[in-house]
């Protein structure tokens, strides 16, 4: 009796000469570890997943119907990548990753987001994006990338190491890392790359960031690989060392994988360490090599991942086990970001007129900052639930059939039990229940 995984592995490896791709490498790992993966998801679930991952919202009902009539997945991925919503959503996700939701030290968050959106729209290679962020200089209102450095100017070495190398140097700020290779000296030498960094407040507002070569004196910095700068513009040299390093390609590949699968091959994705090894090392190596081979082409990497069976694994599996999750035997459930949740509600309810409430919704969702004055604690603050209720109970709630409401919100038809439960209920009630269900809240 040939097991299913053996068959998958045999198919993946057939031909001999070709290197096994994502699915072949996973199949090999499953075979080694005796793991049985979940089945593949259906077309509707694939579309919901890909739409959320690429353009940040569930598919509209017309998009769903069109895809189900002609389920060409590769063409759909291309279509989503070509949508203006792709660079918008990816710039929002990356801005949150780079600068969070607040602005600090005169940084302009929307300036960074705008800059990233243009980069993703132009399909700029990711190593170029990263290099420009690390070595950013100019005026904050003109050069969006500068706002990354401004926001993280207290200790850029920490943020940059986490974001682009997946390395946590935090502990090494004060002492040698207790569980990893990093010493306090490593941190200090890395931090020295930012010594020439000069922030200047301009008379007419805004800030200018530049490296002052006069400050590039004293002992030279040293990158975590041992490389030392050659020019006096240390950040520029650092950007080069980072983006040509192996940790960078691994981290880039791992972050993309994390985005689509809900779990990194190294997880969390900013914690590559001696104690936290990749769960499928060969897969990480393969993706990192692909990143280098494609010159860090974000869209090419996305096509590769989204075309894999790994991306199509169902999130339903009879055994929920962290070990299986680490081997990507089933799809992780990903909670929606506030942007995804709002845009999905608007798409599902055809409620374009709600767009103006987007900022308000996101801020409510993210919550108030810890720095807020809490002397007025009993003041009423709107909750996410309130906002969602307003959206779903608006008089313009779609008044469709039960099937249509399910397709709009959950991208699937109701099952027999659900039909039973919904019998006699008003559309507004059904919409409210579905919009507040876990199935809607999660990307699965």
């Amino acid at each position, binding site marked *: 009796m040939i097991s299913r995984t053996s068959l998958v592995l045999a198919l993946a490896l057939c031909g001999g000469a070709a290197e096994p791709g994502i699915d072949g490498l996973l199949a090999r790992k499953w075979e080694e570890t005796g793991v049985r993966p979940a089945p593949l998801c259906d077309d509707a679930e694939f579309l919901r997943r890909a739409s959320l991952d690429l353009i940040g919202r569930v598919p509209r009902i017309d998009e769903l119907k069109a895809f189900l009539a002609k389920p060409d997945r590769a063409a759909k991925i291309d279509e989503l990548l070509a949508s203006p919503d792709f660079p918008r959503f990816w710039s929002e996700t990356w801005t949150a990753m780079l600068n969070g939701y607040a602005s600090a030290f005169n940084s302009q968050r929307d300036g960074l987001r705008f800059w990233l959106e243009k980069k993703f729209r132009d399909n700029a290679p990711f190593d170029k994006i990263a290099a420009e962020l690390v070595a950013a200089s100019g005026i904050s209102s003109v050069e969006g990338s500068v706002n990354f450095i401004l926001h993280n100017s207290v200790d850029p070495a920490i943020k940059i190491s986490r974001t682009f190398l997946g390395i946590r140097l935090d502990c090494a700020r004060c002492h040698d890392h207790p569980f990893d290779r990093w010493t306090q000296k490593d941190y200090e030498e890395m931090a020295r790359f930012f010594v020439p960094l000069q922030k200047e407040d301009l008379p007419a507002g805004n800030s200018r960031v530049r490296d002052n*070569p006069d400050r590039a004196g004293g002992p030279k910095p040293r990158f975590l*690989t041992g490389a030392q700068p050659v*020019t006096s513009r240390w950040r520029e040299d650092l950007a080069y*060392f980072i983006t040509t390093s192996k940790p960078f390609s691994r981290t880039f590949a791992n972050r993309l994988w994390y985005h689509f699968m809900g779990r990194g091959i190294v997880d969390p994705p900013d914690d590559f360490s001696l104690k936290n090894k990749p769960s499928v090392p060969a897969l990480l190596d393969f993706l990192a090599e692909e990143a280098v081979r494609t010159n860090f082409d974000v869209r090419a990497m996305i096509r590769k991942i989204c075309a894999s069976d790994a991306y199509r694994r169902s999130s339903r599996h009879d055994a929920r086990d962290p070990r299986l999750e680490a081997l990507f035997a089933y799809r992780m459930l990903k909670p929606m970001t506030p942007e995804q949740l709002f845009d999905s509600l608007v798409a599902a309810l055809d409620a374009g007129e709600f767009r103006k*409430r987007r900022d308000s919704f996101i801020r409510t969702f993210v919550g108030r900052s810890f720095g807020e004055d809490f002397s007025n604690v009993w003041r009423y603050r709107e909750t996410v639930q309130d906002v969602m209720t307003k959206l779903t109970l608006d008089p313009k709630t779609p008044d469709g059939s039960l099937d249509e409401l399910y397709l709009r919100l959950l991208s699937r038809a109701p099952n027999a039990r659900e039909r039973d439960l919904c019998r006699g209920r008003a559309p507004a009630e059904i919409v409210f229940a579905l919009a507040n269900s876990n199935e809607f809240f999660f990307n699965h």
Partner: protein
Amino acid sequence: MRLLSLALLFALVPQDDLDGRLDAFGKQIVPGSDPAVARFQKAVATRPGKIVLRDRIEKSAETLRKESERDAVPEYFKARFEEVGGALKLRKGQEEFRRLLIEDYKTSKVEIDRIRPMVKEVADNMADTPEINAKLKRYLSHPATVDALYLRDLRQRSRPDIYVILKKLGELFAQGEDGKFYIPDARQDLAEKFCKVAGAMMDASKDVSAQLGTVCEKLAAFDDLHQRLKKAGSDPLFACMLLKKSLDNADINDIEPAIQKLRGSSDELARKLPEVFEETPKGKVLVEKAYDGVAKALDSYDRARVKVGLLRDPGRQLASRMRGSDARTEMFRKMLQSDAVLALLDVNVGGEEADPAKVIAAQIKKALSKDADGKYRVLPEVAEEVNGEIKDPVRTAEKEDRGLKIVSMWGEKLEDAELREIFTSRYGKFEVERTMKEALSIRSYDGLKSWIEKHFDKSGSGFALKAASKGEIETILAEVDRLEKESKKNDLKD
């Protein structure tokens, strides 16, 4: 054709696309028979080559920046004056500059002369111990201190310039080298939000003032309050003060709720208007319970009028210095000339805090005690703050004096006696310094052009390396090699 493309290298490629300009330059290099130049040409197209060259370019730009700073004072005078027979004479077209400067100088002098004796009295009577008192005494005794205090801080409060508005709105703009302000692409979204809030306020205050004006026209001249209200009723600024509260704690990133609240307040005001007045044979009068609220609103309005009065001119100046004529820029021009919007900016000008003498008196009271022996002493709780503010008084004073000497050397050559007085005074030094600072903050320096001109000869066939620069190219190539070698260390240590 080749010559044209050389010209285009500097003229057409955007200044910020440095990599593009480097590529264009690389293609125009004539390697000749020199293998090092041929290698250099190849290196320009590579990333390490670009990094090393960008370093050179930045250093060239830094040299230009320093030269620019060094030449800033001569440039200031040469732009406004011409040398005629050893003296400097005002250039044609600079008459308005002269008029405004003299006017501002006279006003400043009056204000500085008011605070000088106050500061002197404290300096003369400061205790000598502990050290903070002696330090403050040295600071306050220096002749530059009063002028610096006034010109750097107090003047902005009584006679604000565009920078007080830019402190609130500056993050929306970028400034071109021509000194004009524009809304960069990256700030358009935020600018739109500002426009929405300001537009909503302008509309709402216009609506409310129209309704209020009609009612107030029929007000009886019952007492002072009624007379003030009659005058204020039709002024959109008064309406703005009534509505402004609805924008309290508004977040510019989340403006829709604030706009809704503003519209709600406007509707509510219109609805409640009939309840505030009652008819009498001599006309409408306020109902008793509305007196306090109206009196408070009129007081805020009076304060706002003073503030807005001070901001109108800078607002107009900033509006006239905006570049472009697209709808959003036009809206900003309109906003900057609207009393309601200027009031919304909540700029700290006017009022009690605008009187330099009152501010100085308040600061003395806050920081010093006058003890039984008649001596002033720094209060212990503010000693650290005072120490931070005055830093190193001797060094600061020396710096001020050096700057004054340089400006005075030019000032003494001025033919115009009034201008001569200005430019040999600390006021003149401050004026030059302020103008220079703005000019230098917006100037960009083309380090690539300067570096190429230093090392290459331009000819019809392209850029040929100057013989004297062979060493520079070899150094660059060695650095490129070293950078590539360093980048080979591309994995983590074990």
